């Protein structure tokens, strides 16, 4: 795989007459960017704009990949809700992308990916019989099956319990290595662990925030991680005030 491209987004997004945000966002290639900010500030809108999904507003500006190629078809997407299809087995859910494009899925590869996320024993089960953490692992395998250089994660771990969330962060960091990742999160601890770049979004625009000096993925209890998390939390609380 050639180096995953970065993304540049510059412009203004309006909903009716109201400016939601006016920003110049740089997402570096092959790194994890964590996007934080208050609810309703437009984090998900940024993600939807780049994915070319309906946003309910109008965007004036430019969105481009750093390698100059079109972004369409190079991004896979994982949301807070796992969006697994209840009537399909875990294995069939992983390769749904191929079926939706009308191609024959590579079942062997889907099985390999399930093995990587630790769900080999559950390939034939329906999502309803899985725990929340297992369902998100299946959704992660489905994202990996798409094999896109860019991956967007919209709070995918926020509904999980603390232990499962830490496990999922480690798994995602491992399997998504080398890809450009944009993670939307409300959790400063998650950003401090995972981010190569931390971006805080407010009505004034986006602002990069120094991540810990050590390389991601960081230990939860490392001094740098905890210090970064505390500073970030204080900053976010200051914004809220």
């Amino acid at each position, binding site marked *: 795989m050639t180096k995953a491209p970065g993304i540049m987004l510059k412009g203004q997004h309006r909903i009716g007459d109201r400016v939601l945000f006016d920003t110049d966002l740089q997402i570096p290639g092959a790194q994890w960017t964590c996007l934080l900010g208050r609810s309703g500030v437009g984090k998900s809108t940024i993600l939807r704009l780049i994915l070319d*999904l309906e946003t309910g507003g109008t965007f004036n500006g430019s969105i481009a990949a750093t390698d100059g190629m079109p972004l369409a078809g190079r991004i896979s997407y994982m949301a807070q809700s796992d969006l697994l*299809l*209840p*009537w*399909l087995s875990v294995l069939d859910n992983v390769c749904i992308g191929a079926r*939706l*494009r009308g191609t024959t899925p590579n079942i062997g590869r889907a099985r390999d990916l399930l093995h990587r996320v630790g769900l080999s024993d559950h390939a034939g089960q329906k999502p309803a019989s899985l725990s929340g953490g297992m369902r998100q692992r299946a959704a992660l395998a489905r994202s990996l099956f*798409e094999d896109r250089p860019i991956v967007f994660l919209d709070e995918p771990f926020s509904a999980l319990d603390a232990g499962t969330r830490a496990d999922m962060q480690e798994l995602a960091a491992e399997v998504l290595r080398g890809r450009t990742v944009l993670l939307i999160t409300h959790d400063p601890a998650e950003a401090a662990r995972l981010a190569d770049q931390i971006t805080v979004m407010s009505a004034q625009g986006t602002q990069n925030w120094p991540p810990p000096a050590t390389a991601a993925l960081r230990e939860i209890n490392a001094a740098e991680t905890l210090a970064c998390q505390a500073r970030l939390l204080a900053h976010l609380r200051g914004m809220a005030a």
Partner: protein
Amino acid sequence: MKLRDTLLALVIGLGLWQVLVVATGAPHFILPSPWRVAQAAYKSRVIIAENAWITAIEVMLGLLIGTVLGVATAIQLAISKTAERLMLPILVFTQAVPVFALAPLLTLWFGYGMGSKIVMAVLIIYFPVTSAFHDGLTRIDAGYRDLSVSMRAGTWHFMRHIQIPQALPSLGTGLRLAAVYAPIGAVIGEWVGASRGLGYLMLLANGRAKIDLMFASLIVLACLTVILHVSVGILANRLTWYAQGMSRS
């Protein structure tokens, strides 16, 4: 519904009927007793069975054709916004015409045979099936749409792999209604003009003052409808379990 409860309800129903017959002292050519109806049913079992078979075929074929047409229409409406804009008002308008009022016309066009009754049953169930399934197809979780856009899904593949399976419980709801309506359509068709079928037999018995035979035909018709209702109910439950990823409820 347990078998024991059903049998109990049946016994109570028959008891009330018998009490009514005794209490009112109605003559048997106005209100025959359950025993008299049972005798008539046994005596005329061949003719009842033959006519019930005809009605059952009409209802089944009507249900089958109506469902196929309804499903195809709903899919077409859900895929094409233009079709939806043009067709939905027409569909709603046609519902303003009572299908019963069309029965003489259908008999004129499709004859005294089974054809006009099947068309009648098709017309009466077409709208509930179309409407329920279309509703299910279009009321889709926005997240699935986002996901399939990011996966670059084709319209038809999205329909086939996500919209249709997700809408199966709604189709089940439409089919439950259709199972109740279809026999009504077939019997009304038989009343307006037929030489066979339970509706025809009821009119015939009525004309010859064989009220016990009329009751027997009516009860057989009710039994047919209940069997259909229960079978379609089982099918509808299976559709729902499938869409929810459950093997058993």
